[in-house]
């Protein structure tokens, strides 16, 4: 036990030393943002329905991974319910519009509030325990439960056949968010919002407390941090963002089904973060590009894609636990150290 504590402390020291080194140079960050904005502008410039479709899909997927990073990368909690909340958000928004006659935009805050309540109710019992094992187990079970319930409640959700979504976000201040390009702008805007939130969290006291919780819960508690409350808050925030991404996905795909909540999707999202690099800003984006973007461009059949991704997850977690972003970081900082 003492061994583990000592190891996690040296790890923490190592991580913070690395962060200091990174902070000495803003160049990689600037290059990263330039590359991202270049990437995001491609579907706006390039006139192809397929590219716009793929861009929207990637942006929404990346937003979910960015939100997972808040709970898994920052707070070190293994949440396996991202796709469940993604699906929940899609259904919640769709049902609010269909049954209560709300506008799409008006359904978003309500969806967010419902998700936050649900996430806190699921997260609190699990996160009273030290370590993240209970959360992993309960969020996995919760995801399956939500999927089965959605499939079983025929009258309400349309059952396993799913639901058609007929409405669009409509025209707001002269801009048609219902068109393919409008939805792309909406998805990108949401991705940037998630990135902004994750950066604000990272730089705030709240974020620093999360890092402390991740590195050593006992130490964090002894410093006066309410460990459980911080973990629950991070989980709730991540789940809410995932649900909003789901609501946008609903109007984009105009069809939602319980399969959106499947466990393998949650696992894939965790895989994207592991591959990209948990705890880093660029990691979720890189992970999404590798996971979804590459196979899409290489046109790999779905089964083989997931197989390939499984192999990547195993290999990365065995040999490169800091992910691609960590590797790049090491290359950059290592090169600079040699240059000094």
């Amino acid at each position, binding site marked *: 036990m003492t061994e583990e504590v000592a190891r996690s402390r040296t790890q923490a020291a190592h991580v913070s030393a690395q962060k200091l080194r990174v902070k000495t140079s803003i160049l990689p960050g600037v290059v990263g943002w330039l590359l991202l904005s270049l990437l995001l502008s491609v579907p706006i410039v390039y006139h192809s329905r397929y590219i716009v479709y793929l861009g929207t899909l990637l942006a929404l997927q990346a937003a979910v991974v960015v939100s997972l990073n808040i709970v898994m990368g920052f707070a070190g909690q293994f949440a396996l319910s991202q796709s469940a909340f993604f699906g929940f958000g899609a259904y919640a928004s769709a049902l609010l519009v269909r049954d209560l006659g709300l506008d799409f935009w008006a359904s978003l805050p309500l969806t967010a509030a419902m998700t936050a309540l649900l996430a806190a109710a699921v997260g609190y019992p699990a996160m*009273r*325990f030290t370590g993240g*094992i209970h959360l992993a187990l309960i969020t996995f079970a919760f995801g*399956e439960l939500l999927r089965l319930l959605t499939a079983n409640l025929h009258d309400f959700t349309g059952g396993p056949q799913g639901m058609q979504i007929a409405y669009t976000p409509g025209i707001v201040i002269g801009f048609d968010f219902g068109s393919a390009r409008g939805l792309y702008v909406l998805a990108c805007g949401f991705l940037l919002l998630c990135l902004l939130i994750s950066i604000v969290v990272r730089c705030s006291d709240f974020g620093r407390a999360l890092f402390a919780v991740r590195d050593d819960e006992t130490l964090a508690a002894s410093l006066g941090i309410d460990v459980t409350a911080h973990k629950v808050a991070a989980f709730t925030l991540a789940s809410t963002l995932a649900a909003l991404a789901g609501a946008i996905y609903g109007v984009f795909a105009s069809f939602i089904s319980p399969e959106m909540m499947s466990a393998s999707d949650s696992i894939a999202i965790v895989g994207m973060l592991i591959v990209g690099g948990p705890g880093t800003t660029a990691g979720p984006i890189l992970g999404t590009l590798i996971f979804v973007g590459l196979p899409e461009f290489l046109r790999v059949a779905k089964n*083989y894609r997931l*197989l390939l*991704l*499984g192999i990547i*997850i*195993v290999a990365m977690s065995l040999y490169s636990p800091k992910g691609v972003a960590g590797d790049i970081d090491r290359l950059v900082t290592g090169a600079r150290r040699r240059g000094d």
Partner: protein
Amino acid sequence: MLLDILQTGLDGVMVGSLYAMVALGITLVFGLVGILNFAHGQSVMLGAYVCFFVESASHSFWVGAILATLAMGVFGALLERAVFRRTLGDPFAGLAVSLGLIMIVENVAAAGFTPDPRFMDPPVSGSFALGPLVLSSQRSLVLVISSALVAGFWLFLQRTKLGKAIRAMSQSRRGAALVGVRVDTVSRSIFAVGGALAGAAGALYASLFAVTPFMGATPLTKGFIIAALGGLGSVPGAIAAGFLLGLAESFGSRYLSASFRDGYGFIILILALLFLPTGLFGAGKERV
């Protein structure tokens, strides 16, 4: 009314003993090596396929079930040797690796066996009357086999030397190593025994339900709920929680609402985590 309750109760016990078989592997692997093995459900699925293919080749469910048990025991030991040994002491790496394994095994199975559901003829069919009760023969057989296996496993833990070593290691890995338990061998054997139980459960699942490459998720989910409900690492807790979950599901879906069938266990779990954080008997590791 009384008959109905009895019938529902028996059904719950049958399902519960199946759940318990899967949960034992999860809770013991966690108790011994600290890894939450998500790939455990895949052993159930592969066991079901082994049983299905052997049964269709040899026309004997029993040969199929025994081969499924043995094959999954070997599979568990191989997984430990190839993957999980490298993640000892890092529970999150172990968890992440097992997630990757789910995707690998599931999709190889989907590619190799096709995603179409397959159905197997149960070894016994029809039903028989026990006094005023009418029982399905196959379900009763499953109840008998799985209860016997769970009881046998319990005896194995209590009476054999390896069982004693497993119990010692689940209390303290270092303490067990100090008194001469070969912790490596015991870790591997628990993956093998847990896998074998999952394989046997897979064979029994195959005799009741459709066999598909994605059938592993449900037993895994139930196994997780039971392992947490019984207290992670606790064997008696897992057995009791298995029966409790089975009963809750059958009574809940009979008398409350069938479409919420999978929700009852989860609600019990949430309540248990709030009010009994160390599991049913307080036997699980507190603050794991």
